[in-house]
């Protein structure tokens, strides 16, 4: 009886260790797998030329990723500018001003927003945002636009980022000690002054991290952006013109991937680029968060 229990304990433990091991080496395997596939391209061209060149002619083996990287950056930037203030102020409202009941009501709202698949956001973007940009916003600024633009991509993306950033900000603000807030109120600060001088300044590393992780999330978002951003290779930044973000490049061209030489390793290089950038941003800002948590 005892023997059987010991054996089953050993087997279970072995199963657990194997699982952990698989998970821990997963980032290395992903990186290595993508690198192997991208290697032919990296051998062909120096890294600087791949990232810095803007000629994209797959048939002539000219692969310059600059337009795609810039496209991703533009869309991400717009999304960040639109979502950051909303996230910051709703997090302040939910953790400082409102009663606990409001947070209880808002939690399912945030959860559902986070849970909606990106295709649904894309459909919403096509139905609502794209016509809105082409019919109202573009004439307002005195230009014409098909609607499939950086701005439309940024708007859709900003809505998708809100629940992600907001959840992290709420967590950050909840860790700020109550005594600190009480002290600042007791010396005569108004509620907003208390928020401004203690909550925001004490939570600043956390706020920065939440924003950073939000940017990483926006940078890698694929389907929704791809459906509304137009997907045209361009270097110049214009709000009402289309762009071609890096994830959209991968998702759009997998069909022709194996028919043009080097094209598959170019797309895998794009995936590797995305993986490395996003993993690095994540590692840096997560480290920030762990550091601040430790100090408490």
């Amino acid at each position, binding site marked *: 009886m005892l023997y059987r229990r010991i054996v089953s304990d050993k087997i279970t433990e072995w199963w657990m260790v194997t699982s952990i091991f698989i998970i821990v080496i997963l980032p290395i395997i*992903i990186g290595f797998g993508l690198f192997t596939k991208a290697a032919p391209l990296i051998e062909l061209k120096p890294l600087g030329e791949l990232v810095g060149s803007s000629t994209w002619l797959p048939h002539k083996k000219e692969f310059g990723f600059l337009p795609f990287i810039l496209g991703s950056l533009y869309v991400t930037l717009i999304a960040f500018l639109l979502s950051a203030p909303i996230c910051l102020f709703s997090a302040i409202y939910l953790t400082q001003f409102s009663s606990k009941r409001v947070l209880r009501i808002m939690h399912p709202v945030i959860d559902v927003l986070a849970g909606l698949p990106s295709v649904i956001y894309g459909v919403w973007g096509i139905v609502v945002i794209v016509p809105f940009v082409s019919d109202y916003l573009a004439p307002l600024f005195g230009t014409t636009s098909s609607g499939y633009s950086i701005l439309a991509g940024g708007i859709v993306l900003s809505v998708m980022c809100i629940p992600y950033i907001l959840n992290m900000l709420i967590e950050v603000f909840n860790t700020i000690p109550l005594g600190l807030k009480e002290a600042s109120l007791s010396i005569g600060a108004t509620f907003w002054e208390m928020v401004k001088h203690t909550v925001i300044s004490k939570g600043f590393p956390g706020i920065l991290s939440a924003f950073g992780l939000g940017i990483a999330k926006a940078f890698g978002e694929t389907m929704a952006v791809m459906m509304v951003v137009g997907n045209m290779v361009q270097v110049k930044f214009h709000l009402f013109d289309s762009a071609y973000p890096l994830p959209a490049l991968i998702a759009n061209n997998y069909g022709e991937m194996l028919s043009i030489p080097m094209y598959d390793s170019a797309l895998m290089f794009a995936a590797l680029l995305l993986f490395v950038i996003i993993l690095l941003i994540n590692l840096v800002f997560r480290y920030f968060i762990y550091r601040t948590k430790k100090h408490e």
Partner: protein
Amino acid sequence: MNKRKIIEEKLFRAFSAFATYSLVVILAFIIIMIFVKGFGALSWQMVFDTPKGGYYYGGEGGVLNAIIGSLYISVGATSIATIVGIPAALYINIHLSRYKQIQNTIRYILDALWGVPSIVYGAFGFALMLFLGMNASLLAGIITVALLIIPIVVRTFDEVLSTIPKGLHEASLSLGSTRSEMAFKVIFKQGFPGFITALLLAFGRGIGDAASVLFTAGYTDLIPIHLDEPTATLPLVIFFQLGSPIPEVRERAFAAAALLTIIILFISLSARFLSKRFSKTNLN
């Protein structure tokens, strides 16, 4: 001076309330627009029929193949993620509880993995698929989605497990149980609501994700029977049919979007309901 303070206070209070309640408005707006657009073409035929000949020119048929395909992929991936993820989460909280440094490093890696976008998993799945000599198939889709949701399962379950009091560990060990008996018979039961939440969160993510199955699961009008057959998925049906120039086909994409939204809302509501229900009987 005082007046300025009061105005500033009022202004920011109003602004932050506005920002918060605008989220409700945005969510309602999205869901209502999807439903308004989708319910026009939604019919029982849409749900219970596979595409017939001429479907992509506006002919008869539905998206049953994609609904079944999505369910297969999501159920398969969630099963794999459970088999790998649950023991991993238990191990982090029980066997590694004395090694805070290792515990935190593993959580750190998992959090970073959670942030990796699904298109990267899709590309990696494709590379893996070529390496193993597989074709775009149900199995390849399941493996890719499983990789995507493993971090979600582990971290969600782990968050709940880490709140379980240490006394419970000590009590069950002092009664003579082995560590794995404690893990599955005591701690797992205590963390059961967390397990349900993790499962449903991962399931919802798996059913709605398009970028990861784009390369790996393929596309077909038939309902897959074997693991090595390609399969359609609901998000990809929406994506592909929305690109069609024929209005009837586009209408059906909106209907499929409404369908997917209903499924996601159902999963998210039941996650809430179930985790509340199961946590009633808990100690803490």
